[in-house]
């Protein structure tokens, strides 16, 4: 059925506008860019976690036919500036982060030299011909040991492995809460290091026009605009002569929310060699030299009354930052502190975060960035408290939910949750999961000797980042809408989607609000010469923040069009009614004006009212007044194989509330993909460095991503609680799955093992780890 103007697009499962080019293999990613005279760069990386660099001999490499340049840190660092960290943490000790290593290497994968050649195979041969004398030094790999005095130092010049100590505290007096407690529940929890692993590794193409003095950088990034802000300070090209393009980008998950050494290096090489230069990251480089996520270890204490009332939580958490600060590295653990109380009324909280340098790749934002850590912690702790006090875990959660009428709800962590109905999401999830039947099934399975478990998590997260006062480089978003003379609509956004589908969802709500067909709308993004301003895509901000800027533009265009229509109707704007793409003036005239006629008048400009500018275009900066706070409930049933330790997810129910949904297909996709990341985290994934700092998970044979056969069927539901923060009422959904799912699955596995007396397992709960726990307990059963 053909779409007609006036049938709303919002709320419908429209096919994605992006997909035809993607399913035909016609989309252009960075590696698909071909330029005349293109040179290829390959980077030599350190095989040592920590070493002093002695002599570097590049003569043999330079002698290979086809090699154009072989350069080391001494050749390029002065011209490339320092890799920036934008996070403002008081008293932060930061090492100087040069583009190539100076006299030391600090992690396996640290860039040491670059070879540029006419062919990528030749460039790869060239780096093999570089001779580097390394003098290995002790590697710092255990963050808890690293904070002790007298241990080796990651960066000797900093004098300590501690980058910062930061306290997030709020609410009532934490010591008083623990004095009043009937009981203190203690639990140690680790959030393992993870590798984001987008299927497209990073890549850069840089091209310099010496006549114009302009540099174009195509890069597999989530943040073309932040790069345009930050690269000029590194490479000396003025902001207005730098064009950054994020073409089709093959997944980000936070890993491409960064300014990487290779981006500045390729820009420099293109200028230095006066030729376009391409660098494509190998998978092994991606595992070693693109940011990792998570990696927090903490001792958690919960002050509780006998009736289950939680008075306070305190913790000291050690966050392994790796060897360098990337764009947001030190800020990520502080986000954990901001949402540590989850969706509960907990009067007092104190989280001391110790950020520690180790000889590993930097950690930074990975899907959820600090919030999955918080949710895992609080949701595991709720189960532990419920078990220790003998209270039903669902009742314990319900007891601490704020009521829907209590929103906006101020938390003791200092945030104000915008809107919520946590009880509603929990009720719906229990209905979808058929909760009572699940309990009966579990009882029957246990009676038959099987290890069956049910897990639940109720979560809230911080999205739509965010108010500029809380963001390092501004949290606003820019947009532009142009009604063309042909009545086609061009929408330009400063967010930079790379799979989130905003070419579709923006077109849906723009079509509804302007009363045009979706097929007449084009959404442009990701090129700073087209989308002049922006703050890009991360923190579930694309639609909630970026979309709101577009709404502002639409309002301006409609207001201007009404003024013009009033002039044509020979009346005043307050008599003009706009509906479904048509302007009328009831009671004044029977004439109707549609966009084609109005757009023609606006651009031909022969009959405009006095003072009205020609054209129908508007741009806007939208500044969010608060974050948004999506929430939901995930329920998981698992069965654990006693003989192998294998965990099978037998039911997965997710109810997520992201506010009104523009396109349910896209919302489902975001939730399902997010849950898959969590299945990976709970059951398979862990980035492992050995005691020498060698990376043991350097490729896809060693780092276990979930595969199609590992994923259950999902039962998805939603509730709709609009956010009062933005005009679309949207909360955001990009990270919800990953935030809600990890504790739900972990709780389910531990519930399954509970009859054996197993009360804790670290992530990932691999078959071996689960089997070991079963074996230990069944060999020496705990007393009844």
């Amino acid at each position: 059925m053909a779409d007609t103007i006036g049938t709303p697009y919002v709320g419908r499962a429209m096919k994605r506008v992006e997909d035809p080019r993607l399913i035909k293999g016609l989309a252009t990613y960075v590696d698909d860019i071909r330029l005349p005279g293109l040179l290829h760069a390959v980077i030599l990386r350190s095989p040592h976690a920590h070493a002093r660099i002695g002599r570097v001999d590049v003569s043999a490499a330079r002698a290979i036919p086809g090699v154009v340049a072989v350069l080391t840190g001494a050749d390029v660092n002065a011209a490339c500036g320092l890799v920036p960290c934008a996070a403002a943490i008081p008293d932060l000790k930061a090492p100087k982060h040069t583009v190539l290593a100076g006299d030391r290497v600090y992690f396996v994968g640290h860039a040491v030299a670059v070879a540029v050649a006419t062919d990528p195979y030749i460039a790869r041969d060239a780096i093999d011909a570089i001779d580097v004398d390394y003098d290995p030094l002790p590697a710092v790999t255990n963050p808890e040991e690293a904070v002790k005095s007298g241990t080796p130092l990651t960066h000797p010049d900093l004098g300590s492995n501690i980058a910062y100590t930061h306290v997030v505290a709020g609410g009532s007096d934490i010591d008083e809460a623990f004095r009043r407690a009937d009981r203190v529940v203690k639990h140690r929890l680790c959030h393992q290091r993870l590798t984001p692993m987008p299927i497209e590794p990073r890549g850069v193409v840089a091209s310099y026009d010496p006549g114009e003095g302009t540099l174009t950088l195509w890069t597999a990034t989530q943040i073309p605009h932040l790069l345009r802000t930050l690269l000029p300070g590194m490479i000396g090209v003025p902001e207005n002569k730098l064009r950054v393009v994020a073409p089709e980008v093959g997944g980000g998950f936070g890993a491409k929310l960064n300014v990487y050494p290779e981006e500045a290096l390729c820009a420099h090489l293109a200028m230095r060699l006066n030729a376009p230069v391409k660098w494509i990251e190998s998978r092994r480089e991606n595992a070693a030299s693109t940011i990792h996520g998570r990696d927090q270890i903490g001792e958690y204490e919960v002050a509780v009354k006998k009736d289950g009332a939680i008075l306070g939580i305190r913790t000291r958490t050690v966050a392994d930052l790796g060897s360098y600060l990337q764009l947001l590295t030190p800020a990520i653990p502080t986000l954990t502190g901001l949402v540590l109380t989850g969706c509960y009324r907990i009067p007092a909280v104190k989280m001391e975060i110790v950020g520690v340098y180790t000889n590993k790749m930097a950690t930074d934002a990975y899907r959820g960035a600090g919030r999955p850590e918080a949710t895992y912690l609080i949701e595991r702790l709720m189960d532990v408290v419920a078990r220790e006090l003998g209270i039903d875990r669902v009742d314990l959660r319900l007891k601490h939910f704020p009521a829907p009428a209590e929103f906006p709800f101020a938390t003791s962590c200092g945030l104000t949750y915008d809107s919520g109905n946590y009880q509603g999401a929990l009720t719906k999830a229990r209905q979808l999961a058929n909760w009572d039947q699940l309990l009966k099934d579990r009882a029957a399975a246990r009676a038959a000797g099987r290890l069956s478990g049910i897990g639940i998590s109720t979560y809230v997260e911080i999205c739509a980042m965010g108010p500029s006062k809380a963001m390092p480089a501004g949290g606003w978003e820019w947009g532009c809408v142009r009604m063309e003379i042909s009545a086609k609509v061009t929408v330009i956004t400063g967010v930079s989607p790379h799979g989130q589908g905003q070419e579709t969802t923006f077109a849906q709500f723009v079509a509804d609000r302007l009363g045009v067909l979706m097929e007449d709308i084009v959404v442009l993004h990701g090129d700073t010469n087209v989308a002049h301003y922006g703050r890009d895509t991360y923190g579930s901000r694309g639609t909630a923040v970026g979309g709101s800027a577009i709404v502002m533009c639409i309002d301006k265009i409609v207001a201007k069009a009404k003024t013009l229509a009033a002039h044509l109707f020979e009346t005043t704007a307050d008599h003009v009614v706009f509906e479904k793409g048509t302007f009328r003036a009831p009671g004044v005239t029977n004439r109707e004006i549609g966009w084609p006629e109005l757009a023609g008048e606006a651009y031909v400009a022969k009959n405009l009212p006095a003072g009205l500018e020609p054209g129908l275009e508007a741009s806007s900066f939208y500044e969010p007044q608060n974050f948004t706070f999506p929430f939901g409930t995930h329920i998981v049933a698992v069965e654990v194989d006693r003989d192998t330790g294998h965990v099978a997810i037998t039911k997965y129910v997710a109810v997520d509330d992201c506010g009104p949904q523009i396109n349910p297909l896209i919302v489902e996709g975001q939730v399902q993909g997010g849950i898959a990341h969590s299945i990976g985290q709970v059951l398979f994934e862990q980035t492992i460095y050995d005691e020498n700092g060698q990376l043991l998970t350097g490729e896809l044979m060693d780092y276990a991503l979930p595969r199609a056969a590992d994923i259950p069927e999902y039962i998805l539901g939603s509730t709709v609680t609009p956010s009062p923060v933005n005009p679309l009422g949207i909360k955001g959904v990009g990270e919800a799955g990953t935030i809600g799912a990890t504790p739900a699955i972990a709780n389910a596995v531990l519930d399954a093992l509970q009859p054996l007396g197993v009360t804790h397992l670290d992530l990932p709960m691999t078959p071996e780890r689960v089997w070991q726990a079963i074996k230990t307990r069944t060999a020496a059963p705990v007393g009844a």
Partner: protein
Amino acid sequence: MTVTKLHIETTINGEPREFLCDSHETLLSALRNGLGLTGTKEGCATGDCGACSILLDGRLVPACLVLAPEAQGRAVTTIEGLSSGDALHPLQQKFLEHAALQCGVCTPGFIVAAKALLDAKPNPSEDETRYWLAGNLCRCTGYDKIIRAVLDAASEMKESAI
């Protein structure tokens, strides 16, 4: 060092093609760089991710682990060979309808791998589909919509064959 290029005659997406390549060059590189068929993607270069899936004489292979000279005299099918203009292969149509992709970089590999499945087994079970496609990695979708799209395409192709 004298580099001698090899002259390869092959059939790509039903058309006879010839190209020059180095003896050490992968078929993936020859397709993408020599022939300009960039729809086939490189995700790992070790045969682990499936992004470079192609059919070689009808058999599913990762193009990153095949040398370009091995294409001599053989038939190669890439993602570009599945559709003709706006006329999509049923798998492509179902990927579109189910929104079985997000960033899209793994998608050509999934569609080619799924075609190999349906060519060999027109009516696969869900389990068979999940295990067949376990050689293709996707980090965006969580796989569910991909599985639905492939099963839906299978049932539609079966109906239209009757």
